[in-house]
């Protein structure tokens, strides 16, 4: 049957075409998790730029979990609201028009981060806030902020340690929540965060070794803060050249930002990874390609949806007209008696009770006792 009869849209015309339904076959279900904590002295979160790259390489927003601890773009101190720039010449607004932040402000806590990773969230959590991955998903985790030897700071008031992170990944492995995981961290002494991993199929990259500081790249003299970290800047420059069909592999990623550019020594860890890093494509983690198979069979669309039966109210002979509620019914409000939850004895009860007791006392024992009281 023709599509036009099936979908009835006044105002939109469909040429008379027969649609053959494509049979999509999702090859990898790629789950890309983006976690970021904004560096408190950095206006730019590399997150949005990654967002752009990851978007460009094919991962939909429903597969990205974005955590931003501070509101930078719409903060009153931002002279250009709703914009965040990665370069001081302000050519590209990385906050974009399409960004969807899943966890923001006070919701970015260590507990929420670990719950998202392990999947132990309350049942009423919406889908956009969950990591709905399974054992065939490749996950990319990117963290940035302030850190030290064995910890990463969250919101200036709590830390996540490398042991907690390693245990969380082990839980994920036991529950079959990932196929392969790439972990990138850009903080001071970042290599300490992946020292304790012990689950299989993990690959990690860090911007600096233990004992070294990661440095930031460019200051914005108008605002007075730095825009981006050095490692992230060069990593993003590298990703600019990656396109969905690129054959660049992990060894190229490890070479990003040598010490001459970054001042700190980037490190990586591949011993837990089962495949050879040289054979792992970058687009395995950063992009998503869906395989589509075209089928030549036609599918018959069933007849259009049965329109709903008119409400039973109209079958009555006399139809009552519905009315709007009075917005401020003063008379009704004044005479509204508040429901009394606790029962209190009526007024003067205690006084009356004592008068009764005294009366009975003096009745039985005579009035002569009165002088003892007064």
């Amino acid at each position, binding site marked *: 049957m023709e599509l036009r009869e099936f979908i009835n849209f006044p105002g939109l015309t469909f040429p008379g075409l027969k649609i053959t339904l494509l049979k999509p076959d999702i090859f990898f279900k790629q789950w890309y998790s983006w976690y970021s904590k904004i560096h408190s002295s950095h206006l730019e979160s590399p997150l949005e730029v990654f967002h752009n790259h990851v978007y460009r390489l094919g991962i939909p927003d429903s597969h990205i979990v974005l955590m931003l601890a501070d509101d930078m773009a719409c903060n009153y101190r931002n002279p250009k609201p709703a914009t965040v720039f990665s370069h001081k010449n302000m050519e590209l607004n990385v906050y974009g028009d399409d960004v969807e932040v899943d966890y923001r*402000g006070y919701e970015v806590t260590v507990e929420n981060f670990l719950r998202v990773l392990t999947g132990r969230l309350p049942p009423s959590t919406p889908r956009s806030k969950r990591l709905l991955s399974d054992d065939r998903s490749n996950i990319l985790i990117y963290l940035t902020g302030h850190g030290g030897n064995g910890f990463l700071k969250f919101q200036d008031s709590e830390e996540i340690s490398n042991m907690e992170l390693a245990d969380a990944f082990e839980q994920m492995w036991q529950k079959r929540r990932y196929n392969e995981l790439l972990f990138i961290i850009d903080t001071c002494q970042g290599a300490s965060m992946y020292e304790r991993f012990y689950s299989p199929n993990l690959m990690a990259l860090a911007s600096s070794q233990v004992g070294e500081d990661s440095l930031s790249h460019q200051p914005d003299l108008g605002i007075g803060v730095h825009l981006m970290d050095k490692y992230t800047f060069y990593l993003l420059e590298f990703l600019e050249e990656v396109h969905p069909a690129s054959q660049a592999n992990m060894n190229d990623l490890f070479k990003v930002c040598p010490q001459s550019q970054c001042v700190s020594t980037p490190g990586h860890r591949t011993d837990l990874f089962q495949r050879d890093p040289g054979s792992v494509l970058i687009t395995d983690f950063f992009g998503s390609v869906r395989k589509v198979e075209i089928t030549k069979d036609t599918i018959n669309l069933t007849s259009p949806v049965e329109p709903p039966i008119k409400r039973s109210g109209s079958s009555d002979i006399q139809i009552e*007209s519905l009315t709007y509620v009075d*917005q401020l019914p003063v008379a009704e*409000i004044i005479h509204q008696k508040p429901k009394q939850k606790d029962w209190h004895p009526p007024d003067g009860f205690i006084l009356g009770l004592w008068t009764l007791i005294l009366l009975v006392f003096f009745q039985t024992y005579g009035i002569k006792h009165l002088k003892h009281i007064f």
Partner: protein
Amino acid sequence: MAAHRCGLSLVFILIFSSLACHSSCDSLENANEDTEEKQSVSDTPREVNSDGSIAAEDLNERRGRSTDAELDRRDGTRTSEALTPAAAARDEFQEELVIRPLHSGDIYASFQFRTLWDTDFLQEGQKVSHYRLFPKSLGQVLSKFSVRELHISFTQGFWRTMQWGQPFIPSPPGAELWVWFHDTVSDVDGNWKELTNVLSGIFCASLNFIDLTNTVQPSASFKPLGLGNATDHRFLRYATLPREIVCTENLTPWKKLLPCGSKAGLAVLLKSEKLFHSSFHSQAVHIRPVCQDEQCTSKAWELRQTLNVVFDLYTAGQGKKEWSLFKMFSRTLTEACPLATSSKVYVDITDNPEGELFELSPATPLLSQAVVLGDRRTYSVFDLTRAETFGQLRSLNLLLRWKGDGGEMLRPLLHAERYVAGFGLQTGEIHTVIYNNHPYRAFPVLLMDSVPWYLQLYIHTLTVTSKSRDNKPSYIHYQPAKDRHRPHLLEMLIQLPPHSMTEVTVQFERALLKWTEYTPDPNHGFYVGSSVVSALVPSMVAMNTNFTQDQPLFSSFVPVKEESSYFVRVYTEPLLVNLPTPDFSMPYNVICLTCTVVAVGYGSFYNLLTRTFQVDEPSLPLAKRLANLIRRIRGVPLLT
């Protein structure tokens, strides 16, 4: 006897069958009339456009409508055996933009998008699965949680009533959510909790912070804005998050709820870089049941998405009193949304009858008058469904250029302020001041205050004074707070004398929270949500109580029951209160100090008990040892 009875029963059966046939025949005729009506309605746009060329969109609309009518007729004949004929659920979408220049040189733009849907989510045995213009995400939320009305708003900035007048749709700073549930809900609190979580996912906001510690059940405010008769306040929940920020990530899902998205129609103007560079930005979603037609015999669901924004003269306007669509939104309008039945732009020219205040270009012959907020206003109308609105360049860029300085703005009749008085970190006083600027009429207002539990109110210190005299409220509802469970709720119906200022004061004491309950930045302070003042303000002009389909959207939001007054809701400022904050480095300090004390103390004690002293002879240097060796051999006394 039996024959008689048979005869009688036969007569009855005959009568009943004739009645039934009659009613079904009637309904069939009605169906035919309906379809004919639809045909005629679809014909009228053609008449309007007969002078100009028929726009492509109108043609398609008509064709769409006629196929609708054909379908209906076919359905009508198919189901004529059933007692009631069916009508396809119809969606309708209208959009409008109202531009109101303000006396201070700023400009106020209000977008309203309204989707009307003829279906009943809460009908028994009816599972709605066919969505067209109404967004599916909201439809599923409504049916799952049995929601009767839903009002949610996200606002950045505070509406300055004294400088800007009254807004079309008021909203408090931060996020506000109030919901009326259906009578059939048994666990309202459970539904409320799940609803806030689902909405936080839909709108990318932290609405999951709404829980029982900031939810109230107002007993007299926030009556339903939609159809209904019974109003049991057990099914109402109200919560605000004054700290919630609004940014692009909230605008994006809001735009996705529109049928045309942000690709066509008025929504192309909604660009975040310009919208958030403003003094006031508020976006809201209102869902309620409304009358389907003028007789109001059946319900339809209405989804209104409103966006109010006030652009500042000095930041967005660069100091020049000249506004245009391009300057405000960095876009111009090129077409109406093809799915909209009406798409209009209204410009308020009431203060500019002869054109002496500002000049509006391009000129338009269409004028419309509407009574809104108690005042009769005149508007220039630009109808985007007509091709000639766009002119030669195929784009509409409204331009308002000021020529002279405007006069004084009329003072708004109702205005409210709130502030915290007192000093120190133990006690304080909340003052709410309500102004009645009407010269001779007094009217009642309903003040609703919801204060978090950590500001412990002393209700015995509550005073209401007007014109330096005590003013006793006619109705007070107070629900005290329960620590960590429930906030305070205070509702009062106060009669405001004419031309007066009424002050409501109440003292409070600040509580000390547990150290895990503090936010990561406790020295910023804690927010107290805005007070809500609801009133029926006497109107200068008779309000229109008839409900008509052609009313512009901005004047038909609040249902009008009587002509002499209009309903208005005023929100006060939220308060920022500092609570006594502990020193969060104290646990670390205490651990260090305790460990040091224990180490030093225990160490010394242990040494004292277990240390023994031995005399130790010092060892002689090498030379002397050698000399001693020789002396031993010689038998002479040794050196020491």
